[in-house]
């Protein structure tokens, strides 16, 4: 058997409205006012990374920029802070996509962790350069939680693309 993407199932093509709906839903989750609670993952970054890995031709830097700006406004951050982080994240995820897709979801999560971590580091560096206070190391805990969430997310977001397994007893191959 030839090696394939490890999902080992032929998927239906993705629908773009579903991609943008899930990104919007993630934005909603990011807007939920959790204050300075440690370990809250950046859901938009996670979903964006997912689609950038899955559909590198259809989703990329432009979407990252747009949803970054919307996140900036919703959470009261400096305008362009999340946009910058998500643009870099989307680029890296697009570039990594051909490698990441060969792995199982758990291994994929290990690939995504540095991406999420990098996007947080970018934001911290930018804000510290602008003279903000360092929020504390607990903040980076969020990207670890995000990487853990990748595993269930992998199944949930691909759900509409699964098709029923067709068992044809008389099929020649």
């Amino acid at each position, binding site marked *: 058997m030839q090696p394939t993407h490890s999902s080992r199932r032929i998927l239906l093509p993705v629908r773009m409205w579903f991609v943008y709906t899930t990104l919007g839903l993630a934005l909603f989750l990011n807007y939920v006012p959790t*204050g300075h609670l440690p370990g809250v993952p950046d859901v938009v970054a996670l979903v964006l990374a997912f689609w950038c890995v899955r559909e590198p031709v259809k989703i990329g830097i432009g979407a990252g920029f747009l949803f970054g700006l919307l996140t900036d406004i919703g959470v009261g951050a*400096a305008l*362009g802070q999340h946009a910058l982080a998500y643009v870099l994240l989307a680029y890296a995820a697009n570039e990594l996509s051909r490698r990441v897709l060969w792995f199982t979801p758990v291994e994929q999560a290990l690939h995504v962790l540095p991406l999420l971590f990098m996007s947080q580091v970018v934001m911290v560096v930018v804000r510290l350069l602008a003279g903000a206070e360092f929020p504390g190391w607990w903040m980076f805990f969020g990207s670890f939680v995000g990487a853990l969430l990748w595993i269930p997310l992998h199944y949930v977001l691909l759900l509409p693309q699964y098709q029923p397994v067709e068992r044809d007893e008389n099929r020649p191959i």
Partner: protein
Amino acid sequence: MAGHSPPPFFKRGPAPLAKLVFFVTVSLAMLVSDLNMRYLDGFRQGLSVLAYPLQMAAASPADFVRNASDYFASLVRLQIENKDLKARQLKGAERLLRLDQLEQENRHLRALLEAREKQSVKSVVAEIMYTAKDPFSRKVILDKGAQAGIEAGQAVVDDIGVIGQITRVFPMQSELTLLTDKDQAIPVMIVRSGMRAVLFGSGNGLMELRYLAANADVQAGDRVVTSGLDGVFLAGLPVATVARVERDQAQAFARIPCLPAAGVERFSHVLVLGHQETLMSRPVEPEPVAGKPAKGRKARAAKE
């Protein structure tokens, strides 16, 4: 073969690296202009109209949790609170009665002095909805906005003292930057010695009196109130108490951390104070004394 283009499934628009450089440049430009120059407030207002419904929907779970916890607040707690409030009202009533008389007297005295009458300050009661999610700053969102007449720059107090200043106003809500936000400054006066200073947020939930000489007359426990010099905060509102004074001979200035007086980092109802009366205009600079040789551009301009 003219017009030989690649098949459409290879089309990806501009090269990814070119796109990356473009968007990174745009975001960096936005960051600089937002953080340093505040050019993008109009743009933010525009986009916030888009984000507002989603924001409101997202805030509703928090609202629900808050209301539910209020609903299940135990009877005992409410009784204690009620008793406390009654006691405070009684204590306040006596002062309130005198206030009328004092105001009357004040008006007369001011009239005598031909001073301009202090405008009565119009203030708005608001509720803190939630803490803004940005982990780099200390900001909270209030449930009243431009529609309730709130403007950027207004001072916000609770029942004990100053807690911050309005920094952004949206139609239905406003953003309050707490005094403990890093580098948030407020002009103050030390009650005991009458010395004026500037109090800065130091970022870790505390504040700091900066630029006071190492031998300045400050002691631990001194009360710090607003001096009213900025024309934003009314004079005499409690701000903080001096926690300790660290005098280091090697440095020109003393390090003086202060504890905020009001419940700066607690959730409650707050009062958004109206603007103080406009400050008096700067006094006219005295004419250069005749006979002394005038120098500089200012003097030349005065001559013309």
